[in-house]
């Protein structure tokens, strides 16, 4: 039995080493397709900015209202020279990171408590459902009154937005862990804490990471809204300020920076996921 299996593995390896011309052709096609998709994506992006720029120059659109890539770059350079560009980016990013980290950690901790006590989970369920459907942004003014008009309110705003979703998502993950796996550790006499640490948490690890991914996006929403309401710094502040003084260059430039920062942070979490979630299907 054992020997047969060994042989099978060996056969597979030799098959991988010898690549037939047909297979090489297949790989080439796959690669080509990838390249075409990527270059089309880049092309659309470049075209978009070029058309925007040219349309502004030709007065097809009013660059005062729509701004223009070159004016956005100029605005960014000005901000950079003033030394405030990275200050604003830094504030917003920091608030977001703190918001989603606390939101995720609290969410997971609360989910663990609710997993532990199914009574508590049942009791609290309708409240969670209501809180989940409530637009958390409506609570903004409440936080400002309670906590004060500052970064603390913004962070609380960000974590509120992600908290309930995390609880529901992670608890769901906990509850969908294969009951047979739990039965297995029970046959060894595992107590509830052991069931949690040996099975439920490791089995739900991918769920927790994916909730982290959702939370990054949600926290950006919370932070930007928070900054709209109270802040004296940050990208949300720049956007609101730009709108108020009718400087669309500032608004558009800030939105662009925001988009890049959000995308980078999301990629960071994706990278973290790759690092932490072991892909066992690969040799």
């Amino acid at each position, binding site marked *: *039995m*054992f020997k047969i*299996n060994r042989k*099978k593995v060996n056969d597979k390896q030799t098959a991988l080493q010898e690549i037939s011309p047909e297979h090489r052709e297949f790989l080439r096609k796959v690669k080509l397709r990838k390249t075409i998709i990527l270059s089309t994506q880049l092309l659309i992006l470049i075209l978009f900015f070029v058309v925007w720029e040219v349309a502004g120059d030709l007065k097809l659109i009013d660059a005062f209202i729509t701004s223009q890539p070159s004016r956005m770059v100029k605005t960014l350079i000005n901000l950079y020279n003033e030394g405030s560009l990275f200050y604003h980016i830094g504030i917003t990013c920091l608030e977001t990171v703190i918001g989603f980290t606390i939101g995720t950690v609290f969410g997971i901790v609360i989910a663990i408590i609710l997993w532990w006590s199914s009574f508590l989970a049942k009791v609290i369920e309708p409240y969670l459902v209501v809180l989940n459907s409530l637009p958390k942004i409506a609570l903004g003014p409440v936080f400002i009154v309670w906590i004060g008009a500052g970064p603390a309110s913004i962070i609380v705003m960000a974590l509120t937005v992600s908290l309930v979703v995390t609880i529901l998502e992670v608890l769901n993950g906990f509850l969908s862990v*294969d009951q*047979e*796996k739990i*039965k*297995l*550790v*029970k*046959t*060894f*006499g*595992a107590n509830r804490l*052991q069931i949690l640490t*040996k*099975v439920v948490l*490791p*089995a739900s*690890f991918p769920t927790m990471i994916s909730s982290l991914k959702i939370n990054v996006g949600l926290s950006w929403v919370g932070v930007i809204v928070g900054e709209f309401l109270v802040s004296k710094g940050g990208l949300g502040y720049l956007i609101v300020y730009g709108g108020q003084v009718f400087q669309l260059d500032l608004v558009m430039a800030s939105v662009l920076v925001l988009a890049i920062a959000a995308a980078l942070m999301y990629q960071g979490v994706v990278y973290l996921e790759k690092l932490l979630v*072991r892909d*066992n*299907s690969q*040799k």
Partner: protein
Amino acid sequence: MGNIVELKNIGMIYHSLNGEIIALENINLSVEEGEFVSIVGPSGCGKSTLLSLISGLLKPTFGEVLINGKEVNGTSNEVGYMLQKDHLFDWRTIYENVILGLEITGTLNAGTKEKVLKLLDTYGLYEFKDKYPSQLSGGMRQRAALIRTLATDPKILLLDEAFSALDYQTRLAVNEDIYSIIKKENKTAILVTHDIAESISMADRVVVLTKRPGTIKNIHEIKLTCKKRTPLCSREAPEFRHYFNQIWKELDVHV
């Protein structure tokens, strides 16, 4: 040899909102040390419930379960349980999977670690100990699951449809494999299956249960003429067919 497992007048009732279900009724069964007993029955007759009762995962509504003469009260190290699938944790290496039971029972020490490594070595998994379950074949995974069960050194093994997730060919090979390991480690085994051939080929006795509520319909002493008793050899014995037909009739299957 004495009776290692004794079931006395076992009855089991499940409660649900739709009413109560009598799963088992009036079960009396003794298993001797070193014996291999199979339990067959129509689906839903409470076969698996019976194993859960012996393992201490469930408490019977009526009657008592004795292991080595003592009443079962919760799970114990005396009993090892093998489930339908291998349920190796894919976030743990084979070695880490195999020591799971030792971790949980708090008996992981230099001595038991060495024993586990020896088991892995004896049963040809030593060089795979740092691999992950997905890198192993179905048969090897099942063997790793058995070693995980053996690691805590149970006297009795409960096999709950332990082979039914495998394809037929693998299953025959794994039957052979697991049987020889169980015999070599000198364990008492109780196998629940719906596969009549499997039950005869592996067991010293086959217990036939009736439809729900499950009661014992008959117990067959399996006596086969073959040189060396192994599952595959058993299937070739002349008496095999005779047992098969008798059990098939007793199961009284209608479609």
